[in-house]
């Protein structure tokens, strides 16, 4: 399934991708222990904007996640706009980080991004295998949106 293509862009330009990654690495690096990192993700999860109605459908559901995850990608003005939601707060927190880094960028930039923040924050290495699997599924979906958009 390719992304929905619409003409409406919000004109927002995200800061350089690596700057955002470095910012996250610094934020999480300052957290003293697993509880602090957990609370950080839960806080981000609570603050994540609820996507407009309609995302929690089978069409947008991701397989391979421990909690339920829905995701949608739209190409507007040459940029990939992502929306996602989950029924688990910590997963919403992870979604918030992914969106902070990747949302609103040209598909090519998304495809070429080296997402080192996932390793440096322990997000990839210190998640339970089922959540890590879910993270992989989310990344894969974002990639497939970007791939489908890159050719348009």
């Amino acid at each position, binding site marked *: 399934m390719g992304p929905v293509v619409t003409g409406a862009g919000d004109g927002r330009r995200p800061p350089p991708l690596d700057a955002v990654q470095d910012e996250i690495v610094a934020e999480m690096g300052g957290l003293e*222990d*697993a*509880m*602090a*990192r*957990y609370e950080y*993700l839960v806080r981000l999860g609570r603050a994540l904007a609820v996507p407009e109605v309609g995302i929690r459908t089978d069409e947008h559901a991701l*397989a*391979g996640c*421990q909690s339920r995850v829905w995701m949608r990608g739209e190409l507007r003005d040459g940029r990939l706009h992502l929306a996602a939601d989950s029924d688990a707060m*910590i997963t919403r927190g992870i979604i918030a980080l992914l969106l902070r880094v990747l949302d609103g960028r040209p598909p090519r930039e998304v495809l070429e991004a080296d997402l080192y923040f996932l390793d440096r924050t*322990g*997000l990839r290495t*210190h*998640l*339970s*295998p*089922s*959540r*890590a*699997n879910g993270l*992989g599924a989310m990344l894969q979906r974002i990639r497939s949106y970007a791939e489908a958009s890159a050719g348009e």
Partner: protein
Amino acid sequence: MTDRPTPLSTQDLHALLDDPRVQLVDVRPIDAYNGWRLRDEARGGHIRGARALPAKWSEYLEWIEIVRAKEIRPDHTVVVYGYHEDETERVARLFGRGGYERVRVYHDFVDGWCADDRLPMERLPRHRHLVPPEWLKAALSGETVSEHDGGRVVLCHAHYRNRGDYEQGHIPGAVDVDTLLLESPETWNRRSPAEVRDALRALGITAETTVVLYGRFSFPDNADPFPGSAAGHLGAFRCAFIMLWAGVKDVRMLNGGLQSWIDAGYDVTTEEGERRPVEDFGAEIPGAPELAVDLPEAKEILAAPDKNLVSVRSWPEYIGEVSGYNYIEKKGRIPGSVYGDCGSDAYHMENYRNLDHTSREYHEIDASWKRIGVTRDKHNAFYCGTGWRGSEAFFNAWLLGWPRVSVYDGGWFEWSNDPSNPIETGIPEWARS
């Protein structure tokens, strides 16, 4: 909570031992909990009633979720103990941060508790067959190691049609074992005794060899053409089962697989391990035929009141939503099988593993089986689609020292291939209420 909680004395702790409001937490490595004497303590194992929560897990983002899943509640008085005071106190502080108000520490486990035979301890009966990376490293370097009678050790890096998994990095000295050497791609059952004998001989394994197996977990994706190629550690359990059946007397699994080796800070290599083939296996194969069950016996098990056929499959497979495999068409379950929930799908065993891929705290496995009537007094035959997950569950029961455990080798693949075998689908009666 203060920064340094007052430690309990051995006497204080003993007095609290049977208090239901108290929960002991063991933060040592899971292998120490299981019975390995990693600090040369007088007795191996853990204080009776303690739950395993290795300090290593406090690096995981979801630490508090593990705590809750273990039903360690905020209204408990939590008593934390370990090998090192700093580690114990670090986890105790984490409990405080997680909203636990009554947290105590105990610092005298090795010299106070283990050394006194009168104080109760528990251990996994066959823990020596679930080895820690430290033991493996020492054994490979030829040192005299505990829990081993000496003799040759053959280390096997298991994979399924994926030699690249071995080539990209393995434990020094390991040889690669494709599961296809031991199981047939036609039936997915164990190969014939002669084929297994030849495979073992080529690997340098006799009935007397100590074999240690492990694999790599690399996030199998059920949508891949060969998801099993990414489920190496699960494949290693499969090989362990077949070797036990063949009659290898000392089969061991590296607890947690390659991940544990890496987590311990040890190097992997791309240098090929040397195979030293042997002339003779040294015993008739199978040496332990009772460990494998085939279709006729599976049917007898279903009909017997003191026997269980345990379906180590996922819920979508059990209720017939999916077959679980891209090469199996039929969906559903064997009527009368007991649901032994593996986790998310045919290539995952979350319900039998800790989050670092070590085998799940054995009391938890025991308790989850007890809830479905899978107990040590019965003959329990574990199965799945083609035998991998069944083998891992089997191995856990075998580690518990249960006397009558086996793998129904054919599993769903064999059962569903014969149209005369009945099939059930849908949500079973017991799950509806």
